[in-house]
Protein backbone atom coordinates (compact mmCIF):
# COMPACT_ATOMS: atom_id res chain seq x y z
CA UNK A 1 0.00 0.00 0.00
CA UNK A 2 2.79 2.42 0.95
CA UNK A 3 6.27 2.04 -0.49
CA UNK A 4 9.20 4.38 -0.08
CA UNK A 5 12.40 3.77 -2.04
CA UNK A 6 15.58 5.65 -1.21
CA UNK A 7 13.63 8.68 -0.21
CA UNK A 8 15.60 11.74 0.82
CA UNK A 9 14.17 15.08 1.74
CA UNK A 10 15.89 18.32 2.63
CA UNK A 11 14.12 21.56 3.51
CA UNK A 12 17.35 23.43 3.00
CA UNK A 13 20.44 22.42 1.10
CA UNK A 14 22.53 21.22 4.00
CA UNK A 15 19.89 20.19 6.53
CA UNK A 16 18.33 16.92 5.50
CA UNK A 17 15.04 15.92 7.09
CA UNK A 18 14.94 12.39 5.73
CA UNK A 19 17.80 10.31 4.49
CA UNK A 20 17.58 7.26 2.27
CA UNK A 21 14.34 5.95 3.67
CA UNK A 22 13.20 2.52 2.51
CA UNK A 23 9.86 1.51 3.90
CA UNK A 24 7.19 -0.92 2.88
CA UNK A 25 3.79 -0.92 4.50
CA UNK A 26 1.33 -3.53 3.32
CA UNK A 27 -2.39 -3.23 2.83
CA UNK A 28 -4.29 -3.38 6.10
CA UNK A 29 -1.19 -2.93 8.24
CA UNK A 30 -1.02 -0.87 11.42
CA UNK A 31 2.31 0.85 11.89
CA UNK A 32 3.63 3.14 14.57
CA UNK A 33 6.25 5.65 13.59
CA UNK A 34 8.31 6.80 16.50
CA UNK A 35 11.46 8.63 17.37
CA UNK A 36 12.52 11.84 19.09
CA UNK A 37 11.30 15.25 18.04
CA UNK A 38 12.83 16.31 14.77
CA UNK A 39 13.48 12.73 13.71
CA UNK A 40 11.39 13.22 10.57
CA UNK A 41 8.10 11.59 11.54
CA UNK A 42 5.94 14.50 10.42
CA UNK A 43 8.00 14.97 7.26
CA UNK A 44 7.51 11.33 6.39
CA UNK A 45 3.75 11.61 6.83
CA UNK A 46 3.63 14.78 4.78
CA UNK A 47 5.36 12.96 1.94
CA UNK A 48 2.60 10.37 1.99
CA UNK A 49 -0.21 12.84 1.38
CA UNK A 50 1.85 14.79 -1.14
CA UNK A 51 2.22 17.95 0.92
CA UNK A 52 5.95 17.58 0.22
CA UNK A 53 7.88 16.06 -2.63
CA UNK A 54 11.10 14.25 -1.88
CA UNK A 55 14.36 15.52 -3.31
CA UNK A 56 15.30 12.02 -4.21
CA UNK A 57 13.62 8.61 -4.33
CA UNK A 58 10.13 7.38 -5.03
CA UNK A 59 6.96 7.28 -2.98
CA UNK A 60 4.31 4.83 -4.08
CA UNK A 61 0.79 4.87 -2.68
CA UNK A 62 -1.43 2.02 -3.76
CA UNK A 63 0.89 1.37 -6.68
CA UNK A 64 0.84 4.99 -7.84
CA UNK A 65 4.08 6.93 -7.86
CA UNK A 66 3.08 10.16 -6.19
CA UNK A 67 6.38 11.89 -6.85
CA UNK A 68 5.39 11.88 -10.50
CA UNK A 69 1.73 12.81 -10.39
CA UNK A 70 0.49 16.15 -11.62
CA UNK A 71 -0.83 18.81 -9.30
CA UNK A 72 -4.38 18.18 -10.40
CA UNK A 73 -4.15 14.56 -9.30
CA UNK A 74 -3.15 15.37 -5.76
CA UNK A 75 -6.75 16.01 -4.62
CA UNK A 76 -7.75 12.59 -5.92
CA UNK A 77 -4.92 10.98 -4.01
CA UNK A 78 -5.91 12.78 -0.83
CA UNK A 79 -9.47 11.54 -1.03
CA UNK A 80 -8.21 8.05 -0.35
CA UNK A 81 -6.09 9.20 2.59
CA UNK A 82 -7.45 10.38 5.90
CA UNK A 83 -5.11 12.58 7.88
CA UNK A 84 -5.27 13.54 11.55
CA UNK A 85 -3.02 16.51 12.13
CA UNK A 86 -1.05 17.31 15.22
CA UNK A 87 -2.87 20.63 15.49
CA UNK A 88 -6.15 19.09 14.26
CA UNK A 89 -6.64 21.77 11.59
CA UNK A 90 -10.32 22.15 12.36
CA UNK A 91 -12.27 25.18 11.22
CA UNK A 92 -12.90 27.07 14.42
CA UNK A 93 -15.96 29.00 13.33
CA UNK A 94 -17.71 25.98 11.83
CA UNK A 95 -19.78 23.40 13.59
CA UNK A 96 -18.62 19.86 14.28
CA UNK A 97 -20.98 18.63 11.60
CA UNK A 98 -19.64 21.05 8.99
CA UNK A 99 -16.06 20.16 9.82
CA UNK A 100 -16.69 16.51 9.14
CA UNK A 101 -19.07 16.95 6.24
CA UNK A 102 -16.47 18.93 4.28
CA UNK A 103 -14.62 15.70 3.50
CA UNK A 104 -17.74 14.33 1.82
CA UNK A 105 -18.69 17.59 0.14
CA UNK A 106 -15.46 17.60 -1.81
CA UNK A 107 -16.41 14.16 -3.10
CA UNK A 108 -19.61 15.62 -4.50
CA UNK A 109 -21.98 13.68 -2.28
CA UNK A 110 -25.61 14.72 -2.00
CA UNK A 111 -26.85 16.55 1.05
CA UNK A 112 -28.92 13.68 2.43
CA UNK A 113 -26.11 11.15 2.11
CA UNK A 114 -23.66 13.53 3.71
CA UNK A 115 -26.02 14.02 6.64
CA UNK A 116 -26.47 10.31 7.21
CA UNK A 117 -22.84 9.38 6.86
CA UNK A 118 -21.60 12.28 8.97
CA UNK A 119 -23.99 11.59 11.83
CA UNK A 120 -23.06 7.93 11.63
CA UNK A 121 -19.36 8.62 12.07
CA UNK A 122 -20.00 11.19 14.81
CA UNK A 123 -21.98 8.54 16.66
CA UNK A 124 -19.08 6.14 16.30
CA UNK A 125 -16.79 8.77 17.80
CA UNK A 126 -19.28 9.42 20.58
CA UNK A 127 -19.71 13.10 19.81
CA UNK A 128 -23.02 13.09 17.95
CA UNK A 129 -24.63 15.25 20.64
CA UNK A 130 -22.16 18.05 19.87
CA UNK A 131 -22.75 18.13 16.15
CA UNK A 132 -24.09 21.67 16.18
CA UNK A 133 -21.37 23.24 18.35
CA UNK A 134 -18.51 25.17 16.84
CA UNK A 135 -15.24 23.35 17.37
CA UNK A 136 -13.72 26.11 19.46
CA UNK A 137 -16.15 25.19 22.22
CA UNK A 138 -14.95 21.59 22.42
CA UNK A 139 -12.38 20.07 24.74
CA UNK A 140 -9.07 18.81 23.38
CA UNK A 141 -10.26 15.20 23.36
CA UNK A 142 -13.44 16.13 21.56
CA UNK A 143 -11.57 18.14 18.96
CA UNK A 144 -9.31 15.18 18.42
CA UNK A 145 -12.34 13.04 17.75
CA UNK A 146 -13.76 15.53 15.29
CA UNK A 147 -10.44 15.46 13.46
CA UNK A 148 -10.59 11.68 13.45
CA UNK A 149 -14.16 11.68 12.24
CA UNK A 150 -13.20 13.94 9.36
CA UNK A 151 -10.28 11.70 8.47
CA UNK A 152 -12.38 8.54 8.55
CA UNK A 153 -15.74 9.68 7.23
CA UNK A 154 -14.98 8.84 3.60
CA UNK A 155 -13.59 5.41 4.50
CA UNK A 156 -10.05 6.10 3.35
CA UNK A 157 -7.68 3.37 2.27
CA UNK A 158 -5.01 4.92 4.43
CA UNK A 159 -5.22 6.74 7.73
CA UNK A 160 -2.29 8.90 8.79
CA UNK A 161 -2.14 10.40 12.27
CA UNK A 162 0.46 12.76 13.67
CA UNK A 163 0.76 12.69 17.45
CA UNK A 164 -2.92 11.89 17.86
CA UNK A 165 -2.70 11.51 21.61
CA UNK A 166 -0.50 14.51 22.26
CA UNK A 167 -2.46 16.24 24.98
CA UNK A 168 -4.94 13.59 25.98
CA UNK A 169 -5.49 11.80 29.27
CA UNK A 170 -5.27 8.03 29.44
CA UNK A 171 -8.98 7.36 29.05
CA UNK A 172 -9.10 9.48 25.94
CA UNK A 173 -5.92 7.90 24.60
CA UNK A 174 -7.39 4.46 24.85
CA UNK A 175 -10.58 5.50 23.12
CA UNK A 176 -8.62 7.05 20.29
CA UNK A 177 -6.43 4.00 19.98
CA UNK A 178 -9.54 1.83 19.78
CA UNK A 179 -10.90 3.97 16.98
CA UNK A 180 -7.66 3.44 15.07
CA UNK A 181 -7.89 -0.27 15.66
CA UNK A 182 -11.49 -0.36 14.48
CA UNK A 183 -10.59 1.48 11.30
CA UNK A 184 -7.72 -0.93 10.79
CA UNK A 185 -10.05 -3.89 11.23
CA UNK A 186 -12.31 -2.47 8.55
CA UNK A 187 -9.40 -2.60 6.14
CA UNK A 188 -7.75 0.79 6.47
CA UNK A 189 -3.98 0.91 6.51
CA UNK A 190 -3.01 2.94 9.56
CA UNK A 191 0.21 4.88 10.16
CA UNK A 192 0.52 6.69 13.48
CA UNK A 193 3.43 8.94 14.34
CA UNK A 194 3.92 9.27 18.07
CA UNK A 195 6.52 9.31 20.76
CA UNK A 196 4.12 8.01 23.32
CA UNK A 197 5.83 4.75 24.37
CA UNK A 198 2.84 3.54 26.37
CA UNK A 199 0.53 3.82 23.44
CA UNK A 200 2.92 1.72 21.37
CA UNK A 201 3.43 -0.88 24.07
CA UNK A 202 -0.27 -1.27 24.68
CA UNK A 203 -1.17 -1.85 21.10
CA UNK A 204 1.28 -4.52 19.96
CA UNK A 205 1.75 -3.27 16.44
CA UNK A 206 4.59 -2.89 14.01
CA UNK A 207 6.98 -0.17 15.04
CA UNK A 208 9.31 1.92 12.90
CA UNK A 209 11.79 4.10 14.74
CA UNK A 210 13.29 7.13 13.11
CA UNK A 211 16.24 9.17 14.26
CA UNK A 212 17.81 12.11 12.50
CA UNK A 213 15.97 11.32 9.32
CA UNK A 214 16.91 7.67 9.12
CA UNK A 215 15.16 4.45 10.02
CA UNK A 216 17.16 3.07 12.90
CA UNK A 217 14.96 0.18 13.95
CA UNK A 218 11.96 -1.77 12.72
CA UNK A 219 10.19 -4.34 14.76
CA UNK A 220 7.06 -6.41 14.79
CA UNK A 221 5.74 -6.05 18.32
CA UNK A 222 3.60 -9.15 18.15
CA UNK A 223 6.69 -11.34 17.93
CA UNK A 224 7.55 -9.82 21.31
CA UNK A 225 11.27 -10.35 20.91
CA UNK A 226 12.17 -7.14 19.11
CA UNK A 227 12.99 -9.10 15.99
CA UNK A 228 14.15 -6.99 13.09
CA UNK A 229 12.22 -7.31 9.87
CA UNK A 230 14.63 -5.62 7.57
Amino acid at each position, binding site marked *: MIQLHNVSLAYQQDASALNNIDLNIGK*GEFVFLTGPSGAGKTSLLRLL*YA*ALTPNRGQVLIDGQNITRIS*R*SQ*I*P*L*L*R*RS*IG*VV*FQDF*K*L*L*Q*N*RTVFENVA*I*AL*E*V*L*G*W*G*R*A*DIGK*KTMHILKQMGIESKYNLTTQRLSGGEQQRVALA*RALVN*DPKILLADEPTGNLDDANKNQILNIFKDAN*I*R*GTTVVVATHDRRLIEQSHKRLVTLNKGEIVEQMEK*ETASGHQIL
Partner: protein
Amino acid sequence: MNKWKKKQPAAIKSFKRPTLAGDGFGGRAGFFLSRAVNNIRQNIFVNVVTVGTITLALLIVSLFMLVFVNLESATESWSERVQVTVYFDKELTNPDQSAFREKISALSGVSRVSYVSRDEALKRFKIRLQGQEALLEGIRPEVLPTSFEIALKRSHRDTASVESFVTELKRIPGITEVQYGEEWVRRFNSFLNFMRLLGVLLGGFLVIAAIFIVSNTIKLTIYSRREELEVMALVGATRFFIKAPFLLEGLIQGFVGSVLSIILLFGLYEGFLQNAGSFLTFNPVSSGLSFLSLEYIAGLLLAGSMLGFLGSLTSLKRFINV
Protein backbone atom coordinates in the same frame (compact mmCIF):
# COMPACT_ATOMS: atom_id res chain seq x y z
CA MET B 1 -5.55 -10.95 13.77
CA ASN B 2 -7.15 -13.85 11.92
CA LYS B 3 -10.31 -13.44 13.82
CA TRP B 4 -10.58 -9.91 12.47
CA LYS B 5 -9.62 -10.71 8.93
CA LYS B 6 -12.79 -12.68 8.36
CA LYS B 7 -14.82 -9.57 8.96
CA GLN B 8 -13.07 -7.56 6.28
CA PRO B 9 -15.01 -8.35 3.10
CA ALA B 10 -18.38 -7.54 4.64
CA ALA B 11 -17.03 -4.30 6.07
CA ILE B 12 -15.51 -3.19 2.78
CA LYS B 13 -18.84 -3.59 1.03
CA SER B 14 -20.39 -1.11 3.40
CA PHE B 15 -18.24 1.73 2.17
CA LYS B 16 -19.61 1.75 -1.30
CA ARG B 17 -19.91 5.26 -2.57
CA PRO B 18 -23.48 6.57 -2.72
CA THR B 19 -24.71 8.10 -5.95
CA LEU B 20 -24.12 11.77 -6.25
CA ALA B 21 -27.25 13.79 -5.62
CA GLY B 22 -25.84 17.14 -6.66
CA ASP B 23 -24.28 15.95 -9.88
CA GLY B 24 -24.15 17.97 -13.08
CA PHE B 25 -23.48 21.63 -13.51
CA GLY B 26 -26.79 22.82 -12.07
CA GLY B 27 -26.38 20.85 -8.89
CA ARG B 28 -22.82 22.01 -8.43
CA ALA B 29 -23.61 25.64 -9.14
CA GLY B 30 -26.38 25.48 -6.55
CA PHE B 31 -24.00 23.93 -4.08
CA PHE B 32 -21.33 26.55 -4.66
CA LEU B 33 -23.86 29.33 -4.39
CA SER B 34 -25.29 28.07 -1.11
CA ARG B 35 -21.76 27.61 0.12
CA ALA B 36 -20.87 31.20 -0.84
CA VAL B 37 -23.97 32.55 0.89
CA ASN B 38 -23.15 30.48 3.97
CA ASN B 39 -19.60 31.80 3.94
CA ILE B 40 -20.90 35.35 3.84
CA ARG B 41 -23.22 34.65 6.77
CA GLN B 42 -20.51 33.00 8.80
CA ASN B 43 -17.90 35.65 8.11
CA ILE B 44 -20.24 38.57 8.30
CA PHE B 45 -17.75 41.06 9.72
CA VAL B 46 -15.13 40.40 7.10
CA ASN B 47 -17.78 40.65 4.41
CA VAL B 48 -19.13 43.94 5.72
CA VAL B 49 -15.60 45.35 5.65
CA THR B 50 -15.00 44.16 2.10
CA VAL B 51 -18.35 45.39 0.79
CA GLY B 52 -17.80 48.69 2.57
CA THR B 53 -14.38 49.11 0.97
CA ILE B 54 -15.73 48.30 -2.46
CA THR B 55 -18.64 50.69 -1.93
CA LEU B 56 -16.38 53.57 -0.91
CA ALA B 57 -13.86 52.94 -3.65
CA LEU B 58 -16.56 52.83 -6.31
CA LEU B 59 -18.33 55.83 -4.79
CA ILE B 60 -15.21 57.93 -5.17
CA VAL B 61 -14.67 56.76 -8.73
CA SER B 62 -18.32 57.22 -9.70
CA LEU B 63 -18.48 60.64 -8.05
CA PHE B 64 -15.58 61.67 -10.20
CA MET B 65 -17.30 60.16 -13.21
CA LEU B 66 -20.47 62.11 -12.46
CA VAL B 67 -18.57 65.40 -12.28
CA PHE B 68 -16.62 64.57 -15.41
CA VAL B 69 -19.67 63.55 -17.42
CA ASN B 70 -21.46 66.75 -16.50
CA LEU B 71 -18.45 68.88 -17.35
CA GLU B 72 -18.22 67.11 -20.68
CA SER B 73 -21.83 67.81 -21.50
CA ALA B 74 -21.32 71.43 -20.49
CA THR B 75 -18.34 71.82 -22.82
CA GLU B 76 -20.34 70.01 -25.45
CA SER B 77 -22.88 72.80 -25.45
CA TRP B 78 -20.11 75.42 -25.49
CA SER B 79 -18.52 73.86 -28.49
CA GLU B 80 -21.71 74.52 -30.43
CA ARG B 81 -20.22 77.95 -30.74
CA VAL B 82 -17.46 76.64 -32.96
CA GLN B 83 -18.98 77.89 -36.18
CA VAL B 84 -17.70 79.01 -39.52
CA THR B 85 -19.30 81.99 -41.23
CA VAL B 86 -19.05 82.83 -44.93
CA TYR B 87 -19.85 86.46 -45.76
CA PHE B 88 -21.21 87.88 -48.98
CA ASP B 89 -21.68 91.57 -49.71
CA LYS B 90 -24.84 91.06 -51.67
CA GLU B 91 -28.17 89.37 -51.13
CA LEU B 92 -28.08 85.91 -52.75
CA THR B 93 -30.82 84.77 -55.02
CA ASN B 94 -32.60 81.58 -54.15
CA PRO B 95 -30.85 79.44 -56.80
CA ASP B 96 -27.50 80.87 -55.66
CA GLN B 97 -28.33 80.07 -52.10
CA SER B 98 -29.14 76.45 -52.80
CA ALA B 99 -26.10 76.09 -55.05
CA PHE B 100 -23.79 77.29 -52.29
CA ARG B 101 -25.66 75.29 -49.69
CA GLU B 102 -25.18 72.15 -51.75
CA LYS B 103 -21.46 72.74 -52.29
CA ILE B 104 -20.84 73.53 -48.65
CA SER B 105 -22.86 70.56 -47.42
CA ALA B 106 -20.77 68.32 -49.66
CA LEU B 107 -17.68 69.11 -47.56
CA SER B 108 -16.95 66.64 -44.78
CA GLY B 109 -17.78 67.58 -41.21
CA VAL B 110 -20.70 69.88 -41.90
CA SER B 111 -23.67 69.35 -39.65
CA ARG B 112 -25.85 72.32 -40.48
CA VAL B 113 -25.81 75.22 -42.97
CA SER B 114 -28.08 78.17 -42.53
CA TYR B 115 -28.41 81.32 -44.59
CA VAL B 116 -28.62 84.67 -42.83
CA SER B 117 -30.27 87.28 -44.98
CA ARG B 118 -29.79 91.00 -44.53
CA ASP B 119 -33.09 91.35 -42.65
CA GLU B 120 -32.17 88.51 -40.36
CA ALA B 121 -28.75 90.06 -39.76
CA LEU B 122 -30.31 93.37 -38.82
CA LYS B 123 -32.70 91.65 -36.45
CA ARG B 124 -29.79 89.97 -34.64
CA PHE B 125 -27.89 93.23 -34.60
CA LYS B 126 -30.81 94.86 -32.89
CA ILE B 127 -31.01 92.19 -30.30
CA ARG B 128 -27.31 92.61 -29.59
CA LEU B 129 -27.67 96.31 -29.06
CA GLN B 130 -30.79 96.17 -26.96
CA GLY B 131 -31.08 99.25 -24.80
CA GLN B 132 -28.84 101.23 -27.11
CA GLU B 133 -31.22 101.45 -30.01
CA ALA B 134 -30.01 104.97 -30.71
CA LEU B 135 -26.89 103.55 -32.29
CA LEU B 136 -29.00 101.81 -34.90
CA GLU B 137 -30.60 104.91 -36.18
CA GLY B 138 -30.11 105.28 -39.88
CA ILE B 139 -28.78 101.80 -40.33
CA ARG B 140 -30.57 99.91 -43.03
CA PRO B 141 -30.32 96.26 -43.93
CA GLU B 142 -28.31 97.05 -47.08
CA VAL B 143 -25.17 97.94 -45.13
CA LEU B 144 -25.07 94.55 -43.49
CA PRO B 145 -23.54 91.51 -45.16
CA THR B 146 -25.43 88.32 -45.81
CA SER B 147 -23.86 85.10 -44.69
CA PHE B 148 -23.91 81.31 -44.40
CA GLU B 149 -23.47 79.99 -40.90
CA ILE B 150 -21.92 76.55 -40.88
CA ALA B 151 -22.08 74.35 -37.79
CA LEU B 152 -19.58 71.54 -37.64
CA LYS B 153 -19.94 68.00 -36.49
CA ARG B 154 -18.57 67.20 -33.07
CA SER B 155 -15.56 65.33 -34.42
CA HIS B 156 -14.57 68.31 -36.57
CA ARG B 157 -14.49 70.99 -33.92
CA ASP B 158 -10.80 70.79 -33.02
CA THR B 159 -8.39 73.44 -34.24
CA ALA B 160 -6.74 71.49 -37.05
CA SER B 161 -10.02 70.22 -38.49
CA VAL B 162 -11.56 73.64 -38.45
CA GLU B 163 -8.55 75.10 -40.26
CA SER B 164 -8.51 72.45 -42.95
CA PHE B 165 -12.25 72.86 -43.34
CA VAL B 166 -11.82 76.56 -43.91
CA THR B 167 -9.17 75.93 -46.59
CA GLU B 168 -11.56 73.57 -48.34
CA LEU B 169 -14.31 76.11 -48.03
CA LYS B 170 -12.24 78.83 -49.64
CA ARG B 171 -11.69 76.65 -52.72
CA ILE B 172 -15.39 76.94 -53.59
CA PRO B 173 -15.64 79.62 -56.28
CA GLY B 174 -17.45 82.71 -55.07
CA ILE B 175 -16.46 82.31 -51.45
CA THR B 176 -13.87 84.79 -50.35
CA GLU B 177 -14.57 85.98 -46.86
CA VAL B 178 -14.57 83.37 -44.15
CA GLN B 179 -14.50 83.95 -40.41
CA TYR B 180 -14.37 81.42 -37.66
CA GLY B 181 -12.94 83.08 -34.57
CA GLU B 182 -9.55 81.37 -34.82
CA GLU B 183 -8.36 82.53 -31.44
CA TRP B 184 -11.47 81.38 -29.64
CA VAL B 185 -11.46 77.98 -31.31
CA ARG B 186 -7.81 77.51 -30.40
CA ARG B 187 -8.26 78.50 -26.78
CA PHE B 188 -11.41 76.54 -26.37
CA ASN B 189 -9.81 73.41 -27.77
CA SER B 190 -6.69 73.65 -25.68
CA PHE B 191 -8.86 74.12 -22.62
CA LEU B 192 -10.87 71.07 -23.61
CA ASN B 193 -7.75 68.99 -24.15
CA PHE B 194 -6.33 70.08 -20.84
CA MET B 195 -9.51 69.14 -19.07
CA ARG B 196 -9.67 65.75 -20.72
CA LEU B 197 -6.05 65.03 -19.89
CA LEU B 198 -6.65 66.05 -16.29
CA GLY B 199 -9.74 63.86 -16.22
CA VAL B 200 -7.94 60.84 -17.60
CA LEU B 201 -5.01 61.29 -15.24
CA LEU B 202 -7.13 61.89 -12.18
CA GLY B 203 -9.63 59.20 -13.14
CA GLY B 204 -6.87 56.73 -13.88
CA PHE B 205 -5.24 57.49 -10.58
CA LEU B 206 -8.52 57.02 -8.72
CA VAL B 207 -9.27 53.76 -10.49
CA ILE B 208 -5.81 52.38 -9.74
CA ALA B 209 -6.11 53.44 -6.11
CA ALA B 210 -9.54 51.80 -5.89
CA ILE B 211 -8.27 48.55 -7.41
CA PHE B 212 -5.29 48.57 -5.09
CA ILE B 213 -7.35 49.15 -1.96
CA VAL B 214 -10.03 46.64 -2.85
CA SER B 215 -7.63 43.92 -3.92
CA ASN B 216 -5.63 44.31 -0.74
CA THR B 217 -8.73 44.18 1.41
CA ILE B 218 -9.83 41.02 -0.34
CA LYS B 219 -6.35 39.61 0.05
CA LEU B 220 -6.50 40.23 3.79
CA THR B 221 -9.92 38.66 4.13
CA ILE B 222 -8.80 35.61 2.25
CA TYR B 223 -5.63 35.51 4.29
CA SER B 224 -7.77 35.41 7.42
CA ARG B 225 -9.41 32.30 6.02
CA ARG B 226 -6.32 30.55 4.69
CA GLU B 227 -6.89 27.71 7.17
CA GLU B 228 -10.13 26.92 5.46
CA LEU B 229 -8.36 26.82 2.13
CA GLU B 230 -5.69 24.58 3.59
CA VAL B 231 -8.19 22.18 5.14
CA MET B 232 -10.16 21.94 1.94
CA ALA B 233 -6.99 21.10 0.05
CA LEU B 234 -6.02 18.49 2.61
CA VAL B 235 -9.31 16.64 2.44
CA GLY B 236 -8.93 16.33 -1.30
CA ALA B 237 -10.81 19.27 -2.75
CA THR B 238 -9.83 20.21 -6.28
CA ARG B 239 -8.60 23.72 -6.92
CA PHE B 240 -11.82 24.63 -8.67
CA PHE B 241 -13.89 23.29 -5.80
CA ILE B 242 -11.96 25.43 -3.31
CA LYS B 243 -12.03 28.53 -5.45
CA ALA B 244 -15.58 28.54 -6.77
CA PRO B 245 -17.37 29.62 -3.56
CA PHE B 246 -14.76 32.29 -2.91
CA LEU B 247 -15.09 33.64 -6.43
CA LEU B 248 -18.87 33.71 -6.14
CA GLU B 249 -18.47 35.45 -2.81
CA GLY B 250 -16.23 38.04 -4.45
CA LEU B 251 -18.74 38.50 -7.24
CA ILE B 252 -21.56 39.02 -4.76
CA GLN B 253 -19.48 41.41 -2.67
CA GLY B 254 -18.55 43.41 -5.74
CA PHE B 255 -22.12 43.55 -6.99
CA VAL B 256 -23.55 44.56 -3.61
CA GLY B 257 -20.77 47.12 -3.21
CA SER B 258 -21.49 48.70 -6.58
CA VAL B 259 -25.25 48.78 -5.96
CA LEU B 260 -24.64 50.50 -2.62
CA SER B 261 -22.24 52.98 -4.17
CA ILE B 262 -24.77 53.89 -6.86
CA ILE B 263 -27.49 54.37 -4.25
CA LEU B 264 -25.16 56.55 -2.19
CA LEU B 265 -24.10 58.50 -5.24
CA PHE B 266 -27.71 59.10 -6.18
CA GLY B 267 -28.41 60.26 -2.62
CA LEU B 268 -25.47 62.67 -2.78
CA TYR B 269 -26.59 63.93 -6.16
CA GLU B 270 -30.15 64.52 -5.01
CA GLY B 271 -28.89 66.16 -1.86
CA PHE B 272 -26.71 68.44 -3.95
CA LEU B 273 -29.62 69.39 -6.18
CA GLN B 274 -31.82 70.19 -3.19
CA ASN B 275 -29.28 72.26 -1.34
CA ALA B 276 -26.89 73.69 -3.87
CA GLY B 277 -29.12 76.70 -4.61
CA SER B 278 -28.36 78.16 -1.21
CA PHE B 279 -24.57 78.28 -1.60
CA LEU B 280 -24.10 78.40 -5.36
CA THR B 281 -24.99 81.35 -7.51
CA PHE B 282 -26.69 79.22 -10.12
CA ASN B 283 -29.66 76.95 -9.82
CA PRO B 284 -28.36 73.43 -10.43
CA VAL B 285 -31.78 72.04 -11.29
CA SER B 286 -32.18 74.25 -14.33
CA SER B 287 -28.56 74.18 -15.41
CA GLY B 288 -28.80 70.87 -17.19
CA LEU B 289 -27.05 68.69 -14.63
CA SER B 290 -27.79 65.04 -15.12
CA PHE B 291 -27.19 61.80 -13.23
CA LEU B 292 -25.09 59.06 -14.77
CA SER B 293 -26.71 57.44 -17.76
CA LEU B 294 -27.85 53.81 -17.69
CA GLU B 295 -24.76 52.76 -19.61
CA TYR B 296 -22.52 54.21 -16.91
CA ILE B 297 -24.58 52.57 -14.17
CA ALA B 298 -24.40 49.21 -15.93
CA GLY B 299 -20.68 49.78 -16.35
CA LEU B 300 -20.30 50.49 -12.65
CA LEU B 301 -22.19 47.34 -11.69
CA LEU B 302 -20.04 45.31 -14.03
CA ALA B 303 -16.84 46.95 -12.83
CA GLY B 304 -17.78 46.34 -9.19
CA SER B 305 -18.58 42.69 -9.81
CA MET B 306 -15.38 42.20 -11.76
CA LEU B 307 -13.42 43.97 -9.05
CA GLY B 308 -14.71 41.51 -6.45
CA PHE B 309 -14.26 38.53 -8.72
CA LEU B 310 -10.77 39.32 -9.98
CA GLY B 311 -9.65 40.49 -6.54
CA SER B 312 -10.61 37.10 -5.15
CA LEU B 313 -9.10 35.26 -8.08
CA THR B 314 -5.69 36.88 -7.77
CA SER B 315 -5.65 36.61 -3.99
CA LEU B 316 -6.62 32.93 -4.03
CA LYS B 317 -3.67 32.12 -6.23
CA ARG B 318 -1.38 32.93 -3.35
CA PHE B 319 -3.02 30.79 -0.76
CA ILE B 320 -3.95 27.65 -2.62
CA ASN B 321 -1.08 25.33 -3.17
CA VAL B 322 -2.76 22.23 -4.41
